[in-house]
């Protein structure tokens, strides 16, 4: 799980092109959107695409998005759960 969290942090920084942010600075529990990491709805679109592309997991609707995008912890659990059930 820790490896997955690290991969997610690195993916967010690299593919969302976040400037001046290191993976070590992203907390596992801080919110990804709004206060916290500060991602916005435009980033959400990219994140949905990236998660499907890199992890083969689709976030299909608002309910799943709301559950998965709480934090790095939540996102990693969501992906692991989906990969496990798939």
């Amino acid at each position: 799980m820790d490896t997955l969290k690290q991969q997610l942090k690195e993916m967010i920084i690299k593919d969302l092109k976040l400037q001046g942010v290191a993976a070590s600075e992203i907390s596992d529990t801080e919110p990804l959107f709004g206060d916290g990491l500060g991602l916005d709805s435009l980033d959400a679109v990219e994140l949905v695409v990236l998660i499907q592309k890199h992890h083969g997991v689709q976030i299909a609707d608002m309910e799943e998005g709301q559950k998965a995008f709480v934090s790095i912890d939540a996102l990693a659990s969501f992906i692991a759960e989906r990969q496990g059930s798939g």
Partner: protein
Amino acid sequence: MTQPNSTGNRAEVLGHGIFYLVLKIVGQLGAYCLLAPVVAVYVLCSRKIHRTTRPYLKRRFPEHGWLGLRLDTFRLVHSFGKVLVDRAWLGLDRQAKLHGEITRLEELQDIIRKGKGIILLTAHVGNWQSAFAHICSLPKPVHSLMHYEAEAVAKHYFDLRNEPCPFNIINSDGFLGGMVEATAALMRGEIVTIMGDRFLGKGPYVTVDFLGAQVKMPAAAYALASSTGAPIAVLLAAKTGRGRYTVHTWDIFSPKSTERAKREQEYTAWAGRFAGALEEYVRKYPYQWYNFFDFWSQ
């Protein structure tokens, strides 16, 4: 919700009732005949309607004086009234049908067949129900990203026809503006329609030039296209006769954002392209763009 307790609201309810009755008895043409004098009286007596139409009409017809703008207001409100009559007629009479065409249909079908999804970017023009009749005949599920009020209107329309809504509505007031669901639909190669002309105070927007002044326009469509690789087709419907319309495929383009720092600049360029298409549309159909408020001060 406002209850019909004031005299004005009661008059409005009575007016709707009379139109529904005329539609039931004599049909669309009868309602059109009733519409012209009703709109004429409204335009002569109401100051409010001129305040709401003036920001657009002054920009669209800068050369028109006091009388010209009043005539323009009549034509704009009359045209909108016909759309409302058509909507009610289609809802009340199951035999009622509008006839029309969609331009560049083969190109749209080709894109859909490639499986990348497509964003149909439209605006508050013409009769959108007519556009949807065509869109829903495309060979993939259709989703419409819309806010609550429009969602209620859409549901009401299909309730009137006693038909299931032929497209899935994604509520743009939901989590992250409905962007997650719209992205997932595009990634399944499906169709997402978005109104590109009206910024409702929520979600991402950019500022572009439209009819000679700056205006905010939503940026969601460009973000979705750029991330998913789905092209954007600008679809603008126009009423061309009593029972006829054309859905124009005005433009097709594929936005691709290069880097985060340039995102706003790039979205502005694409929204400017859409605004340019809409300007061409209002030059051709000046009385079919229905935004009855100061679009430039939103």
